[in-house]
């Protein structure tokens, strides 16, 4: 116990415990809540958010922020849909193109941030407008995707046990999370990201590859956003400029709830998972309750968020004092 308390990942553990509490409360109150599929649905429904959050974790760990992810996601669905439905490209090629495109979009933002020494917030905010705007240049209407590969991926259910299933998208998200963990903790790039977040000036003076890492971090985030866009496209089978409005805030919230410090340098990529699950759980709770009016929905989400963050914080404080 003492070792657990002393571990730097304590905050993350608190999240896990609180999440279990939240789930327990749901299971006790609502019939059908305590089923495997409900838990798996958390993963299936939030796969895209998890992927974005993994990319966002790197950005935030490096001391930056990326507001463009939601729009890049939408742009990806739009471009993919257009290429598939209007230009009739093969699905595999489309996937490769949009992934590269997303990474390039992110890297470009990173470059602007690095070369012109601009603030990440403002650059990615402009990137957010740009990507969203480009969607509408392609089409203001939504485009339905019926490419066989996408449809198959959309409707495949990977059976697990006792009738419970997982979607390919969820599986991809879990793989991305694993890769994120590996990159963060086992590669020089990952450690440089942490160093950047700890102190960019120091990292520069330590002779670390600050510029390259920065560009790569935003490139990675852009890649994750477009991968999330693909998952979204599998999930919705459509391209649409209004998809995933405000997802960037959800992703940032998930990362921060997962214990990563917004100013960078402290936290774990794994936290993204707990953050995403907490947000998902809150929504599931509300859907199961099914009596809340639209405004009470917002208030309750806010209140649950508050309770979660406050408890997490108080427990961490207590640990710091003890």
């Amino acid at each position, binding site marked *: 116990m003492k070792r657990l308390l002393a571990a730097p990942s304590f905050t993350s553990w608190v999240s896990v415990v609180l999440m279990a509490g939240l789930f327990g409360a749901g299971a006790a109150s609502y019939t059908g809540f305590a089923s495997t599929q409900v838990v798996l649905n958390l993963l299936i429904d939030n796969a895209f958010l998890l992927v974005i959050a993994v990319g966002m974790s790197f950005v935030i760990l490096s001391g930056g922020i990326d507001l463009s992810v939601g729009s890049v996601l939408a742009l990806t669905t739009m471009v993919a849909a257009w290429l598939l439905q209007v230009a009739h490209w093969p699905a595999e090629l489309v996937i490769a193109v949009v992934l590269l495109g997303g990474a390039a979009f992110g890297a470009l933002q990173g470059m602007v941030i690095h070369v012109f020494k601009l603030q990440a917030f403002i650059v990615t905010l402009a990137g957010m407008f740009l990507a969203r705007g480009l969607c509408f240049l392609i089409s203001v209407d939504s485009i339905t995707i019926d490419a066989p590969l996408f449809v198959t991926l959309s409707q495949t259910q990977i059976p697990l046990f006792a009738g419970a299933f997982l979607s390919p998208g969820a599986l991809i998200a879990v793989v991305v999370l694993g890769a994120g963990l590996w990159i963060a903790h086992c590669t020089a790039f990952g450690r440089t990201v942490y160093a950047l977040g700890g102190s960019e000036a120091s990292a520069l003076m330590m002779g670390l590859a600050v510029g390259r890492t920065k560009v790569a971090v935003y490139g990675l985030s852009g890649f994750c956003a477009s991968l999330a866009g693909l998952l979204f496209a599998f999930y919705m089978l459509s391209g649409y400029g209004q998809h995933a409005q405000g997802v960037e805030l959800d992703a940032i919230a998930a990362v921060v709830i997962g214990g990563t410090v917004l100013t960078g*340098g402290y936290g774990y990529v794994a936290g993204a998972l707990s953050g995403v699950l907490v947000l998902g759980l809150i929504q599931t709770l509300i859907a199961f309750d099914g009596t809340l009016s639209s405004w009470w929905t917002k208030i309750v989400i806010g209140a649950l968020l508050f309770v979660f963050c406050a408890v997490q914080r108080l427990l961490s404080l207590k640990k710091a004092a003890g």
Partner: protein
Amino acid sequence: MNLPITSTPVLALSGIHKGFPGVKALSDVSLRLFPGEVHALMGQNGAGKSTLIKVLTGLYQPDAGAVTLDGKAIAPKRTEDAQDLGIRTVYQEVNLCPNLSVAENICAGRFPRKSWLNGGRIDWAAVNAEARRVLAQMDLDIDVSAPLSRYSLSVQQMVAIARALRISARVLILDEPTSSLDDAAVQRLFTVLRRLRDQGLAILFVTHFLDQTYALADRITVMRNGETEGEYLASELSRLALVNKMVGAPPDQQPTRLDSRASQTGAPVLSAQGLGRRGALHPLDLQLKRGEVLGLAGLLGSGRTEAARLLFGADAADAGHVDMHGRTRRWHSPREAIAAGIAFCSEDRKHEGAILELSVRDNILLALQARHGLRLVMSFDEQQALADDYIQRLGIKTPSADTPIGQLSGGNQQKALLARWLATKPAVLILDEPTRGIDVRAKEDLMDQVRALAHGEAGMAIVFISSELPEVLHCSDRLLVLRDRRAAGEYRRGELDERSVLEVIAAESA
């Protein structure tokens, strides 16, 4: 021991110019570094030493001038480039990442990796072992997997040095690496440096300690006001001459020493009763009288800083209390201590002192203003006058009081921070390593000032902490020796000499 001057320099700088808006930091500076020598770069605060080093490592781009390595012109654009060329640097301020572990800070950039067959990932066991190996050279045995921020500034400084030592290089640059190290640590560092020198490394070394210069350096380059004053063989330059070349004045008489009379100490102002904090300081009793200087001596990590922080309320004590002017107090925040008339000048000026982007004036005014609350303590003109007064009195080298303090040289920042606390006219002044990074002349001035503040009319009670034993001995009326985070003895002025104090300090703990 000196290599013949006929051998070609590894590194040569010539005609370097570097200006900042409003300041000419370097003009026509030249420097040669030969393999297998320790080259001391000397000069007053703000002479341009650090700037020169930053030009060398690519952190700043020179306005004019050439840098050659092995006769080939180089123009590093980033520290990274310089590193690849074999130039390793320890900068003046500790420039490491507080969030990373000690081991990572040492290895970052060149991690030991597992083989490709194993995925090519970082080999954490090897990283830690490697870090422990390098630190062992300096006899430092700490938990390398703990985050750097857990350790005191002096440990951090050693880690920074270890980082530079880890990879063999052609040139090693150390900018005031010893400014907060104690004697023993300095000796261990020197042993390492001598060995490296004998292996043919060229070492550039900046320090304000003459003793260290003469103990280590083969050659000395003196800088003054951003220009090269000259290059000398250490064996041919006397101390006095060196100081004169740095200061640029004709030989002065020995600076007037204060009488060594035990001062008239008055009523106790501040005392600590069983003041302690778990894991940082064992309960400590301590008394401070009006008009006396109390020196705190001890080794690295002996708890001097912690004692000071507890007296000031920077950390919350979990045992004991302080008595201030006879009233029992338990500080909840530094504010209360400041209101009661205590001032604390931290050893870590970069993180705990300077507000880098604010002007020198605002930095000087800050504590006074904070004590007053929101109402301005004085008009703008008076602020200016106050700042100018301190700039002049402490000899702070700055273009103007409006210059951001971050643009000052390290030593001058230190002086400005001292001014911040003097401006509050405290009853108790706690100075933690106030001489850190201050040049020879300024150091003497400072120590004279400290004694004057205590013994003069102000009658301040001063706690003086320094890793330089001679300084502590010189300054203090009373000396408290700490060892292993508890008091190991208390001595009046004159009761002990440097040797015997050293014995007390370094005695094996029971």
